[in-house]
């Protein structure tokens, strides 16, 4: 009996080690250190350490949370979005501070605490006019594999009974090269989805650059990132126009927590409530977006 129990405990321990066990609130308060996982992709929305004025909305929100807990913040940089979902990630970090779209699939992997309302917005070059999904026929829409926009776009097109073809592409020499596997020539009556391979090293503004370079006609980004970039970037204002929302539902972007850190996730929720009621959140929002949080909510809920 004792041997069976010992074996069971060993197996349990191995399993726990495999998925990674996050530290909870008391561990963080005890060590006085909050380990924050974040991508350094020169994005004002996420983390841009070289930018003194706007080092990153997620970075600053995480910093405010660390200050709220009276602990130091330690940054752990990640290369890409996918690595957040690797095994053992919460052995290295306590919180993932990034613009993680909250989906059912992701919620199975980690606790996602929403910090901002979000939608998906389609954009094109100046002069482009797309006001309904039907207008996407004959156009090339750029999405990235692994980003939620791909599945959302397919679902919306299916619901609207609009045909589409998916062609895999890979960026090379300022161009999007078709990968030979399953290439389908798109007619004018269908939407051509250009799917960028998952192994491509994504950089901030990649979608906008492809549309400006005419490698694609339409791109999809989240409204939160779009607001920050569009209102603060001259070359976007001069070359890009917002077209339409992909769907009517408003979703959320959230920070990620280990399933084994419920108290920390709960404390983050409390902090958000405090930050939103005290004006801290609105001040931070205005600094990055140039518009008020309430105006942003009105815009995406219309």
């Amino acid at each position, binding site marked *: 009996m004792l041997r069976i129990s010992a074996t069971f405990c060993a197996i349990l321990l191995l399993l726990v080690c495999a998925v990674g066990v996050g530290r909870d609130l008391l561990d963080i308060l005890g060590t006085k250190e909050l380990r924050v996982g974040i991508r350094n992709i*020169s994005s*004002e929305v996420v983390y*841009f350490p*070289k*930018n*003194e*004025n*706007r080092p990153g909305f997620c970075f600053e929100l995480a910093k405010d949370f660390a200050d709220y807990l009276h602990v130091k913040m330690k940054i752990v940089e990640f290369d890409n979005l996918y690595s957040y979902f690797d095994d053992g990630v919460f052995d290295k970090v306590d919180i993932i501070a990034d613009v993680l779209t909250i989906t059912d699939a992701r919620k199975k992997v980690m606790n996602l605490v929403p910090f901002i309302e979000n939608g998906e917005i389609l954009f094109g070059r100046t002069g482009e006019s797309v006001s309904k999904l039907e207008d996407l026929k004959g156009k090339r829409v750029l999405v990235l594999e692994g980003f939620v926009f791909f599945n959302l776009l397919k679902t919306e097109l299916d619901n609207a009974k609009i045909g589409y073809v998916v062609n895999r592409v890979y960026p090379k020499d*300022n161009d999007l090269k078709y990968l030979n596997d399953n290439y389908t020539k798109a007619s004018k009556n269908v939407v051509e989805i250009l799917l960028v391979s998952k192994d491509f090293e994504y*950089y901030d*503004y990649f979608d906008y*650059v492809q549309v*400006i*370079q005419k490698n694609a006609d339409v791109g999809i980004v989240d409204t939160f990132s779009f607001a920050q*970039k569009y209102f*603060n*970037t*001259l*070359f976007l*204002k*001069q*070359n890009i126009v917002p077209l339409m929302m992909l769907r009517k539902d408003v979703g959320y972007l959230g920070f990620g927590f280990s399933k084994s850190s419920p108290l920390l996730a709960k404390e983050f929720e409390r902090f958000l409530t405090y930050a939103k009621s005290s004006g801290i959140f609105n001040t931070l929002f205005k600094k990055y977006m*140039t518009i008020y949080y309430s105006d942003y909510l009105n815009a995406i809920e219309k």
Partner: protein
Amino acid sequence: MTIRRKIFRTLIITNAIILTLTVAVAMFSTLNRTVRYESEKLNILSRGFESFLGDSISGISNSLAAVKDSNDIQFLFQSDAYLKSLSEASIKNSLRDVMSNYKEIESIEITSSSSNVLSQGSSVVFQAHEGKVYTQNNDSYLMLKIGVNSQVNLVVTISLDRIFKSFIEENNFDRYSQLLFYEGNDLYYVDLQGNSSKLVGNDTHKLLLSNEGNVDDLSFYIAKPKNYVFDDINEYIFLMVMFFLLVILITNLVSQYLSKEISSSITKVAKLLSDLPREHFEKIDVEDGFEVKPSHHL
């Protein structure tokens, strides 16, 4: 000397003194009023230019806020060549728009530490010059530094010649006005004939100055050459002199006439008296209201 001549001399001297004093007081008062009027006008000009330049600087700063706060500035220092070129082009577009709205801007530059990262317009001033104003090749410039972060600045070069000219022309002010400002310890001037250089020696004594104006740490005066200030009253002085001579002439004639009339009456009376027999006296009734009071005897 005849009595007629004596009377004439008395009259002419008296009139000349009164007239000279009147003219002197009138001229002094006119000069004083002119200087006060011109000084007040220069003070108003100085205050006007203070707000004109201040409005221009704040307008330029506000227009450049979109560039200063943009993400594009950050991309100028990133390794991604395409993002950098997109940002450069967009920033230059925006700077061009600002410059077309503010014609007094000579150039706008983005600098990092001591190097020039991007410039729009003719970059005449950026030579690691740290002063507020700069004079070069008969032109003067005001430098406006807008901090982006601890390393990066937007440096706007404003042509003082152009902004002063447009201020004077827009308000239809005196074209002889000059703008004086200090560069270090040296006093420089800008005029509307396109001249700008250092004032030497006692040149300031030839100028009528306003009170000191100050905008964004630039101290300045509005000045007007004194010869132009008094140019307007030269005609007045000439007329006064002519009037003086005319009045002297008239006074001379009137004095001659009066002296002739008075002296002829006196001559007649004297002649009449001389013709009277010396023994014959008649009582004259004095009717001057003077009463001799009877003396009281105790």
